[in-house]
Structure formats: C-alpha cells, structure tokens
C-alpha cells in the first residue's frame, strides 16, 4: 500500500505572530518553521499502519511549501517515512484554500497513492477545509475526523468522530482520511532516523510539471482578504468581595437578574 501523508509547514506554534498590514499576510521572517503539529498524528498513523501491515507498504511525505522548508520535511523523514515530495513554486504564493487544494490534488495525482492521510487542521490558517476539498478534486472518498484506523485485508476500517459519538466505516482504497489528535501519540524521531533521513530522497515538483488548467496563487484566488483585525482586548471582569458563600450566591443572582438572564 502506498501511503502519502500531506503535511503543512507552519510558523512555530509558540511564537508571537504578526500580520503585515500591507500584504495582509503573516510575517514569517524571524519565526521558526515547524511541522504542523496536527500532521504529526497523520505521520504516526501512517507509520503504524506500515509497521502493522509489514508487506512492503511505503510512506511518502507530501508538502506544498517553499523550498526552504526542506529541513523541516527531514523531520518527517526522521520519524520513519520513506521519501518525500515537495511542491514548490513562487507562483503558488497567495493561494487560497481552493487554489491550494487544486494544486495539491494535481500533484498528488502525479505522485500516486492508495491512502492519503491528512491532519485535521493547520495551526496557522486553521480552516480545516483542505482535506474535504482535496478529496473532492481527487474524486475519492474523504473520511474526516478519524480517531481509529485499522487495515483489514483489502479494506481500511475507520472510526469517525462526531459531536455526539462515532461512526464506524469500512472503505476500499484509494481514499483520503484526516485524523484527529486522539488517534495516537506521535513518536519522536530517533537518532538513527535523523542520521538516516539525509540519505532519503526529497523530490521537487514545480507548477510546470502539473499542467494546471486554471491559475493558482494570488491570481487564482477566489477569495480576497479585505480586512484583518485583532480581537478586542477583553476588559477586566467585575470583582465582588463578599464575606461568605451565601452572600456570594446572592451577588451572582443579582447580577444575572440585572442582565435579565434569569
């Protein structure tokens, strides 16, 4: 089984972030780039599946990112993936979700896959829309929010999280599956993995390799960012000092009455 994991490179989750008011884009200079933490769960799920099947299945990392992200892709290889493909092109800059998914889909058709694993969402744009759109563009079933995944002969058995419970589904590849954080505990890359990663291949694809039928990047964006604003700083709450619990309770009741909530 050829497993491909899509990973996004994102600015360090712990860093303070700033938006450039001119371009309305995130300022990425001076911020360390990391693997989207959600995608580490997808990598782990892929590796576990490969190890369980133990039938020559392979794990390929796929990312659409600038070439400077190569070093970060090596971390995914150090965790145990076999090789990687990077789709890099200056013309991709400014792609919106539809453009991103369209370009990724074209590249993934070239790469080939039986199982496509995605994270649930990124930690920068956080739309969570790429997996769904990608499945649509690829014309394969898309199982999102999967928290359990097993392979059973020809079939993959997945448990999807819902608001109130879960749904068990069985599916025949090719298929796209996005996984949630409850599916596993991602491994650390081992030293052996780190040393071995530099010998693994990272293939490059450019837009000219894909033969796209419509524009991507800023030119092809169907959405436009009109304005960006930081949320208002929340004011201080009301602090009431009381002698005991009973007095406190009546203070709360008074407050709720005043707001016409009770």
């Amino acid at each position, binding site marked *: 089984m050829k497993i491909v994991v899509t990973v996004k490179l994102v600015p360090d989750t712990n860093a303070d972030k700033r938006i450039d008011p001119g371009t309305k884009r995130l300022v990425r200079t001076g911020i360390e780039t990391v693997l989207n933490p959600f995608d580490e769960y997808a990598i782990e799920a892929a590796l576990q599946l490969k190890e369980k099947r133990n039938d020559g299945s392979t794990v390929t990392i796929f990312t659409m990112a600038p070439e400077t992200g190569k*070093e970060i892709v090596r971390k995914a290889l150090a965790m145990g993936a076999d090789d990687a493909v990077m789709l890099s092109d200056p013309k991709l800059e400014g792609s919106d979700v539809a453009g991103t998914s369209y370009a990724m889909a074209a590249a993934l058709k070239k790469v080939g896959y039986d199982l496509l694993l995605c994270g649930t969402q990124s930690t920068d744009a956080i739309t969570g829309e790429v997996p769904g759109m990608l499945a649509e563009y690829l014309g394969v079933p898309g199982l999102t929010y999967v928290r359990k995944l097993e392979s059973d002969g020809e079939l993959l058995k997945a448990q999807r999280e819902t608001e109130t419970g879960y749904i068990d589904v069985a599916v025949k590849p090719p298929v796209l599956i996005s996984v949630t954080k409850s599916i596993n505990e991602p491994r*650390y*890359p*081992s*030293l052996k993995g*780190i040393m071995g*990663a*530099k010998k693994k291949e990272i293939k490059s694809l450019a837009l000219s390799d894909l033969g796209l039928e419509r524009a991507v990047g800023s030119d092809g964006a169907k959405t436009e960012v009109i304005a960006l604003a930081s949320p208002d700083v929340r004011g201080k709450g009301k602090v009431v000092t009381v002698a005991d619990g009973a007095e406190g309770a009546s203070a709360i009741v008074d407050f709720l009455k005043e707001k016409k909530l009770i």
Partner: protein
Amino acid sequence: MDFDLTEEQKAIQSLCREFARDEVAPRAEEMDRNEAFPYDLVRTMAELGLMGLPFPEKYGGAGGDTVSYALAVMEIAHADASTAITLAAHVSLGATPLFLFGTEEQKARYLVPLARGERLWGFGLTEPGAGSDAGATQTRAVLRDGTWIINGTKAFITNSGTEITAGTTITAVTGDGTNGRPEISNLIVPQETPGFTRSKKYRKMGWRASDTRELSFVDAAVPEENLLGVRGKGLQQFLTTLDGGRISVAALSVGLAAGAYDEALKYAKERRQFGQAISKFQAIQFKLADMLTEIEHARLMVLRAAWEKDVGRDFALTASLAKLYSGEVSRRVVNEAVQIHGGYGFMEEYPVSRFYRDQKINEIGEGTNEVQRLVIARQMGL
C-alpha cells in the same frame, strides 16, 4: 569559520529539546523530592538512541558526533540535571573506557547493551581516601590461578546500583610498579560478581534522582580476561576518559545555567513590585544581561572543545577550560536566578531552588575547580 550547526546537529538538538520539555521537565520536581531514579526516561532515551549517541552503529550506538552529544546533554540539563548526569555518566564514563580500550570480544559483550541503553555501567575511580589524588588507590587486585581477587572500596560511583546496571570498571593496584609508584590497572567487574556489593544510595544535596553508591569488594573474583586495556595503564586510561568526560559535564553546566536563566527571565517579566514588572528595574536587567553573556561564552567553549574532539585535535586543554569556566558560570547564574526570584526562589515549588542545589557538584565532580586549574597550569607547562 562557520558557527552554524549542521542540519543533523540541529535535528538532534530539537529532538532533545522537545523530549526535555515534554517528558523530563514536568517530572523533575517530583523525581528530586522522592530521589526516584527515572527508569522510564532512561528507556525513552535508549529508544531515541541517546544512550549510545557517540558510539559507532556496529557497537549498538547511533554514530553521532561529540557536538551532537554535547547539545543533547545541554538540552536535557536545561530541564533536569539528574537525568542529564545519568546520560552523561553512562556515555562518557561508563561506556567510553570499554569503547576506547576494550577488545572486540569485550565490546561485543559489554559495550553493545550499554550503547543500546538496555543496561548501565559505572566508572569506579574515586575512593574514600583517593579523590583528587586518584593515584592513591587502595583497592588491590591479585592475580591467582587465572582469577583477579579484588579487595577495597570505591566512593560516589554514579549509575553503579540501578536495577539495570550491568557492572562497573574500576581502577585497582595490580602490582608494585616502578619508581615507588604502584602499578594500577582497570578491571571489568560485572554486577553479579561474588564479593562485590553496593551500598544504599547516598542522600544527596543535588542530583537526587541520580544513582550514586559506595562499592565494596571483599575477595571479589573476576576472570583474568576482565583486565581492560594494558596492564599498568589503568590510571592513564581513566585520565584519558576524563578528558572527554569534561566536555559532557561542561555541557551539563551550560544547560543547567540556561534552564535557571530562562526561569529567571520568565519570572522577572511576571513579578510586579512598585507598580511594574521587576524586569523594568535596571538592577534586574543587568543581572540578566550578565547571565546571558556568561552562558553564551561558556556554550561556545564547550562546543569548541567538542568540535576539536570531532576533528581529531588535541582537545584536553579546551575541555578543561570549558569545564572550569562553565562550572563557575553555572554557580553565578543559579545564584542570581534565585536572587531574582526573591523569597519564592527559596521555595521548593520553584524550579530555581532545585537548579541551585543541583549546581554545586558541577564544580566538584570529574575534577574539582582546583584540580582543573592544576590540569590547565600543567598544560601551560608550569
């Protein structure tokens, strides 16, 4: 000249940083309080390949360089010195003599499980009466019918008595020698050797979760082939081992100092007095500026010594300079880190109080500050 780490060194550094932050730091206070040896952390470090980091793959190691090893020790010491010394003593003191001086047979038998991190190993040089004066060894070994019979005591031996310790290499007087100096050799003493026993763990001021014990040998018998390296070269072999060991203790000092500094910086920004964060007071800013200056200075010295070792240069002097300087820097840094915390720094809930206690041994173990100065003066030809 290039100050950038290689891609691989950066990857190892960030792996260790993540491991230290996510797995070690949250446990450090509790381990310290209970003097609990971190078996599970050792297991994880073994899985990651850290316990055999600098040894070749054919001996079960990860084939990393000394710079990566120093970076690993720094990152782990940033969270907890006990875990860092367990790693550093295992690699630099326990396993290294077997790697440097062992026969292929001894390496296959003893080194491989150590490099894989399945077992630990001790380095038995110090005795109750032979500390800085390590050549004053009283432990004696007599070769009788193909068996070494060992009698004596070793003091303060790290990693010597855990449930996964496989043995200790010791120095012992094995003959009269020449010029009135006794002949000293190294012997491999497996844990199950009859007549070899370990005391209970010492109760320590710092490094409380690490395993330190006194060893006793009463007619302890090991086969003749357990001689490590050349007979009569035991002290030199151990001193050579300590040259490399200094890089890792120096790295430990830098990591510990950086950990204390980060705590102090965070606290200074949070703590408010006289209507503002104490980090706004110039007196506090200057302390923090001095701390960072000294830490970065020490870090450069450690990495330089590690690099010299990697490229095959004579690194003994730089390693001693780095060990001495970073040990003293770590003392000044933990002292100011507690000072910046005020009374809270004296409370065990705050990590700086542990850093403060853990620091002192950095100026004593593997050659005291005074001995370091002696070694440096000797290198200067004085």
